[in-house]
C-alpha cells in the first residue's frame, strides 16, 4: 500500500501548480478567496483560460477535445484549483452534458455541440428539477409532444423547471421532458436540448435566503424544439439522466474546497481572539477545529480509495453518495465554524460587499462580510444534486442491499 501519488502523478500536480501560478488571474483568485460573487465575465474568463490550455474537459476523451485524464488526475486538478482559489468551472456543459453527448449523442450532435461547449459559444444550464418533484426526478411533468410542420419534425414543450442554477446567463438548457404520458414513471421521459432564446421560454429569478441570486424558475409555453435536439432514443431519456448524474456526483466530496475553506478558517482562528488569546488556542474552539480537520483528512483518503477503485476512468457508482453525504457535512461544519469565529461580526450583512470588484470598507475582521452569507448559502450542499436523505437511500439500497 502506498498513500502517495506516483512520480507521474506528482509531476502532473507540479504542472498544474505552475499553470495556476502563471495563468490564474490574481483578481479572480482574490474574489474567490474573499467569498465575493463572480460575475458572468469572471466565469467566462476562467473558462477561456482553461480552454486555451486544453484543460477544460477533464472527463472527456482526447478525441473530442478533452484531456483524457485518469480519475486521479482529475482529482489532483480539481484539488489544486480549489487550493489556489480558482473559480469553479460552470459544470453544466463541460461536466454534465458533454459526457452524455459523447455516450448517447449522434455524430452530428457531437460535432456541433461539443466544440461549442469548449469554446464557450453556448452557456448550458440544467432542466431536471420541477416544482413538486425535487429529488424525485422521475416525477417529471414537463411535456414534449412530437409533430411535423412545414419546417420539419419538432417537439412542442410545455411545463416548468426550477432551481436552474445560473440559468440567467444560459442560452441553452438540457431538459428531461415527458414524451409518453401513458408509460410508467421512468419510461416515457426524453432528454431534450432547448434553445432558451426560443419564443415561449421565460426565466424568473429565485432569491435565496442569503439574499443571493443564482437559481431560477424556467417556464416553457408552446416552445418549438427541432426533433434533431433529442439526445438518445425517445422515451429512453432516463438512461441519459442517470448517466449524467454519475458525472454530477463526480468530485462531489469537494475535498479541495474543504481544504481551502479550512485554511481560511485557521487564518481567521489565528486572528480572532477570545479571552485575549487566539481562538485557535481556545479549548472548545480548537477541539471543534481539530475534529473537522481529522474528518477531512479521513475523507480525503476515502475519496482516493473510491477513485482508485474506479481506476481506468469513468465515474464511481453508489460510493459517490457516501462521498456526497460526508463531504457536504464536513464543508458545512467548516463554514459554520468560520461563522462562529466571527462572533458578533457575523451579523452585519452588506450585500454590495459581495458583488463586484470594489473592496468595500467593511468594519470587522477579515472575511466577516461573507462568513454568514456563505454559511447560509451552503445549506444547499446537503439539498441539491439529490438531497443527503436520497443519497442515504441509495447507499442503503445499492451498497447494503436493504
Amino acid at each position, binding site marked *: 500500500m502506498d498513500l502517495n501519488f506516483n512520480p507521474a502523478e506528482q509531476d502532473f500536480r507540479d504542472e498544474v501548480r505552475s499553470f495556476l501560478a502563471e495563468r490564474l488571474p490574481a483578481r479572480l483568485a482574490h474574489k474567490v478567496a474573499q467569498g465575493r460573487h463572480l460575475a458572468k465575465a469572471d466565469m467566462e474568463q476562467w473558462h477561456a483560460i482553461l480552454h486555451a490550455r486544453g484543460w477544460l474537459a477533464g472527463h472527456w476523451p482526447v478525441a473530442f477535445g478533452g484531456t483524457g485524464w485518469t480519475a486521479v488526475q482529475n482529482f489532483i486538478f480539481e484539488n489544486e484549483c480549489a487550493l489556489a482559489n480558482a473559480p469553479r468551472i460552470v459544470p453544466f456543459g463541460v461536466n454534465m452534458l458533454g459526457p452524455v453527448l459523447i455516450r448517447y449523442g449522434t455524430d452530428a450532435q457531437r460535432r456541433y455541440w461539443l466544440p461549442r461547449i469548449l469554446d464557450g459559444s453556448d452557456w448550458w444550464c440544467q432542466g431536471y428539477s420541477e416544482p413538486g418533484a425535487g429529488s424525485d426526478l422521475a416525477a417529471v411533468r414537463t411535456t414534449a409532444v412530437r409533430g411535423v410542420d412545414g419546417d420539419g419534425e419538432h417537439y412542442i414543450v410545455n411545463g416548468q423547471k426550477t432551481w436552474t442554477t445560473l440559468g440567467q446567463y444560459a442560452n441553452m438548457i438540457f431538459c428531461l421532458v415527458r414524451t409518453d404520458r401513458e408509460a410508467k414513471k421512468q419510461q416515457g421521459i426524453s432528454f431534450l436540448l432547448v434553445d432558451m432564446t426560443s419564443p415561449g421560454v421565460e426565466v424568473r429569478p429565485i432569491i435565496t435566503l442569503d439574499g443571493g441570486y443564482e437559481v431560477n424558475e424556467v417556464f416553457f409555453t408552446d416552445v418549438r424544439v427541432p426533433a434533431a435536439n433529442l439526445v438518445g432514443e425517445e422515451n429512453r431519456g432516463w438512461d441519459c439522466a442517470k448517466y449524467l448524474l454519475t458525472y454530477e456526483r463526480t468530485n462531489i466530496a469537494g475535498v479541495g474546497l474543504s481544504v481551502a475553506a479550512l485554511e481560511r478558517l485557521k487564518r481567521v482562528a489565528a486572528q480572532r481572539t477570545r479571552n485575549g488569546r487566539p481562538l485557535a488556542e481556545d479549548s*472548545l474552539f480548537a477541539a471543534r477545529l481539530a475534529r473537522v480537520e481529522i474528518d477531512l483528512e479521513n475523507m480525503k483518503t476515502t475519496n482516493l480509495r473510491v477513485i482508485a477503485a474506479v481506476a481506468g476512468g469513468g465515474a464511481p457508482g453508489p460510493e459517490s453518495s457516501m462521498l456526497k453525504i460526508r463531504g457536504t457535512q464536513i464543508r458545512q461544519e467548516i463554514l459554520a465554524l468560520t461563522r462562529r469565529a466571527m462572533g*458578533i461580526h457575523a*451579523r*452585519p*450583512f452588506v450585500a454590495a460587499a459581495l458583488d463586484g470588484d470594489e473592496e468595500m470598507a467593511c468594519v470587522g475582521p477579515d472575511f466577516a462580510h461573507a462568513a454568514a452569507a456563505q454559511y447560509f448559502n451552503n445549506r444547499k450542499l446537503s439539498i441539491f444534486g439529490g438531497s443527503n436523505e436520497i443519497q442515504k437511500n441509495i447507499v442503503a439500497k445499492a451498497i447494503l442491499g436493504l
Partner: protein
Amino acid sequence: MNFEHTEERRMLADSLDRFIAAEYGFETRNRIAASAQGYSSTMWRRFAELGAIGALLREDDGGFGGGGHDIAVVFESLGRGLVLEPFLASAVLAGEAIALAGSNAQKEILRSIVEGGTIVTLAHDEPDSHYELARVRTTARTDGGSWVLEGAKSVVAHGDHAQLFIVSARTAGAVDDEHGISLFIVPADAAGVTVQGTPTMDGGRVAYVTFDGVRLDAQAVLGEAGHGYDTLERAVGRGVLALCAEALGAMEEARAATLEYLRTRRQFDVPIGSFQALQHRMVDLLLEIEQARSSVINAAAALEGDRVPRERALSAAKMTIGRVGTLVAEECIQLHGGIGMTWELPLSHYAKRLVMIDHQLGDGDHHLQRYIALG
C-alpha cells in the same frame, strides 16, 4: 408545582400574539426589516400602547412587570413574529442598566422608553472582544469637571437610529478587569460621535460607533464610576433571557411550519412525513425544543436570585438555545429541501434569526465556558 403563567401574563401574551398576527404579517415584517430605519416607529408606539414595553420593567421603574416570566412571555411572542423593534436594546439592556444604576434624573428616561419614545441602546461590544463582558478597551478620562471618551463599539443594535447610547468605558484597570468599567449615557448627537449603520443578516440594522474625544459632563456617569460591571452583568443577564425566549418562539414557528410541510408535501406519491427517516428527526427536534423551553423556564425563575445560580441558569439557557436554535434552523431548512433555501419562504428568515441569536450576548461555547467557570 405550577407551570402555568398568571392570568395577567396570559392576557398580555394573547393580545400581543393577536396584534402580531393581524398587524405584523410576514410581508410587513420584511418591509420593516429592509427599511432605512430597520424598525417601525409606528409599530413601536403600538407595542407601547399594548403594554408590551412596560411589562419588561418593574413598577418602581415606570413599568408593571419586570419579572423573569414577564420577559419570557413577551419575547416568546416577539420571536413568533420575528419582531424587529428595539425591545431588547432599549427596554431590556439599556432600560435595566438605567433602572439599576440611574439617578432619579436619569430614571426619567425610563418613562420615555416605556411610552415608545426615546430609543436607548447599549454600546458595549468592541472590535476585538468576543462576547467577553469585562473586555473593554474604550476609555474615559477626567478632564477638569468632565469626562473625555475615546474608543470604538461594534455591532450596536439600532445604533444609527438611537437617541442615546449607554457606553461602557474603562476608567481604571487592565483591559479585561471587571473592576474599573464605567457606564456613560451619551447622546448620539454629541460632538465626536460617529455612527456607521449597516443592515444585518437577520433583518434590521446595527452600527459601528466611534467616540473621538467626546466630552461628557459629570452627570453622564450611570451609577458609580468604576463599578459598572455588576450593572452590565445584570442587564446583559436579562437580555440573555429575552433572547432565549425569543428563540423559543421562533423555534416553535419553524417547527410548526416544517411539520405542516411534512404532512402536505408529496414525493414518490406519498407525504414525505410518512418516511421514518424524517419522522425520527422531527421527534428529535420536538425533544430538543422541549428541553430548550425548560432551560428558559429555569432561567426566568432564577432571574431575581443570587448571582451564581442566576448566572449559571442564564448561561445554561443560552448554551442550550445556541445549540438547539442552530439545529432547528438547519434541520428545518433541510427538511424543506430547496424551497427552504428561498427568501420567499418565511421559514428561512426564522432560521436566520435563530442562528444569529447565537451571535448575540455570547454564543453556546462562550456560555458553556462561563457555566463551568461559575461552577
